[in-house]
């Protein structure tokens, strides 16, 4: 009898259950979501404020800001600002030129290194090599610049002379005067060394994700490593590696200090990669910033905006490629 009573008392009253989070969770989710939006806010603010500051210059110059190649501020006798021409073309050419040299030199080395690390190196050697290459990525750009200037310059000048001697008939390897130091070629070499660890890390991650069953299937069919890599790894990882290369391109385009140190920043369009003159947008900003008046600062802001948008586009493409082809991007 008592048992029955107890049982009926134990049956809980029916109740509503809800998936609505409690107050504390609502606050938590709101705070975290707000924090999560910070990257959106910061990127938005960067675009907004650089546009506001650069607006005057962009309105006056319009498209000639990126097509014209003249950067001049004319002051009157008392040193007051009288008129100016701002065109970024020479530095845009320089930006692409040095970045593309970096990609051409750096990416093959990086991809082959990644292949070595994934499919050849083993055990402790592999760990050590990976640590060293990741450490290279953490070196400050200042260090790359000074090392490039002090150590690499001599060797690179010699390579440049050789290139010029034997391939000088190709217009881009020709030089108007025998000045081989501080050229876009050498800047490109330094940038190549800077992007190698980034591209290696991404390629390695992508190669690591190659499905093991397919690799083993290829080996079971008697494939050599080369045949396996060509049949399995490359088709699987191609897009991701291209994405990694784009990421490297973006880094190389935005580099300031290393390029400023190594390259002889001269405001002229220079296609001849071995000749010691050139520059990129970032190094121009650093060079002109010191003595710039308010009008020129505005122009530099506009230049910064162009650089920001360029790197944003390159990074966006690389991100899409990496995420589409490698399942888990960096």
């Amino acid at each position, binding site marked *: 009898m008592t048992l029955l009573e107890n049982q009926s008392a134990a049956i809980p009253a029916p109740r509503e259950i809800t998936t609505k989070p409690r107050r504390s969770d609502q606050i938590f989710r709101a705070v975290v979501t707000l924090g999560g939006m910070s990257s959106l806010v910061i990127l938005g*603010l960067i675009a907004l404020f650089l546009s506001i500051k650069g607006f005057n210059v962009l309105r006056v110059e319009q498209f000639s800001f990126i097509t014209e190649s003249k950067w001049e501020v004319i002051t009157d006798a008392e040193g007051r600002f009288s008129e100016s021409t701002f065109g970024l073309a020479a530095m845009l050419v320089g930006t692409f030129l040095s970045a593309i040299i970096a990609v051409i030199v750096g990416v093959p080395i990086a991809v082959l290194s990644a292949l070595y690390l994934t499919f050849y190196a083993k055990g402790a050697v592999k760990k050590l090599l990976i640590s060293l290459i990741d450490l290279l990525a953490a070196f400050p750009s200042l260090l790359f610049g000074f090392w490039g200037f*002090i150590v690499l310059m001599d060797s690179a000048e010699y390579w440049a002379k050789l290139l010029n001697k034997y391939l000088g008939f190709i217009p881009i390897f020709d030089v108007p005067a025998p000045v081989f130091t501080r050229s876009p070629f050498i800047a490109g070499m330094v940038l190549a060394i800077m992007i190698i660890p980034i591209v290696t890390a991404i390629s390695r991650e992508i190669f690591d994700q190659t499905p093991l069953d397919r690799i083993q299937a290829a080996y079971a069919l008697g494939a050599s490593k080369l045949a396996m890599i060509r049949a399995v790894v490359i088709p699987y990882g191609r897009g991701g590696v291209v994405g990694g290369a784009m990421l490297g391109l973006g880094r190389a385009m935005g580099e300031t200090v290393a390029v400023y140190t190594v390259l002889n920043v001269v405001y002229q369009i220079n296609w001849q990669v071995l000749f010691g003159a050139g520059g990129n947008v970032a190094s121009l900003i650093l060079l002109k910033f010191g003595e710039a008046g308010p009008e020129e600062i505005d122009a*530099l802001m506009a230049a910064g905006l162009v650089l920001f948008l360029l790197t944003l586009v390159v990074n966006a493409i690389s991100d899409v490629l990496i995420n589409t082809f490698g399942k888990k991007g960096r």
Partner: protein
Amino acid sequence: MMQSTIPTPQTPWATSIQQRLNTAGLILLGAVLAGVAVKTTGLSGKLGFAVSFFVIASLLIFIQQLRLRDLAAAKDSLLSSFASLAIILTLIPIISIVATVVVKGYKGIHFGMFTNDMTMASVNDPVTAGGLLHALVGTIMMVGVALLISFPIGLLTALYLTEIRGNLARPIKFLVQAMSGVPSIVAGLFILSILIIPVTQELTGLMGSLALSILMIPTIARTAEEMLRLIPNELREAGVALGATQWRTVSGVVVPAARSGLVTAVILGIARIIGETAPLLLVSGGADALNFNPASGPMGSLPYYIWKAFLTGGTEEAYSRAWGGMLILLIFIVLLFSLARYLSGRKVA
């Protein structure tokens, strides 16, 4: 007697010592032939030797494989030659950079550099005059303030991506990635355009910290996200099953479990910005005197100290000073990096 009929395990696919010796012999022969080539032909110098050595050695291995096995194996050997070449080409700059900094930097190191600033010395004075105390203090303060700003934001972003997983997770991940590609000089220009020119009109350490934060947030957010993903879902489920709210689960279970991972994120964030130069040249000014107040007056930093000694000097003394500063900076980076490696190598708590 039964024992002898059980075959010992074999690894017929493994490279035998004989084969390794053969390959090593061929590489040695390649080096000798390359030396002969440099002596006898127009090739000269280190570059000539390196190129001919690589070509000759990989050709020798190619021919040997072709003779012993077949064309497929020979081609395969070419790939391994090129892959080895690539890894060596990657290692050369690393070794050269570290060696350069150590060899050139140790002359610039002296005890007084940790107790003096540059108010009474110019960069061209003997290296024993002056020091980098102001730069060290400036860097530590700026990085510290940047960390105070970046860590909460980075952690919240990571939590949004791993715990809330809202509709915006994909775009946010993309934006964090995009933010990590923002050129450092643009970060400096941004702080100039939003705060210094319209509001404060003054270059201070705090502005440097803000610019560095922009570069630090994506590194912390991405690393923290990766670390939080390593926390097994069972822990979260256990927390919720015990009746905890999501807030209690995250603050009491997930974040403590990821503690060492979050420390790694912080360390990598610091390593990312500690050597950053371009934004500091624009926004934090550069001081030669100690400044303990980030909110007013220009503030020195290690990168600025190195930059100034390198570019405005020109004497041997100034170069030694710059490389000495660089050695200190590099030691910091290597220490931070090793610490991060050590922490992330340990098992997640």
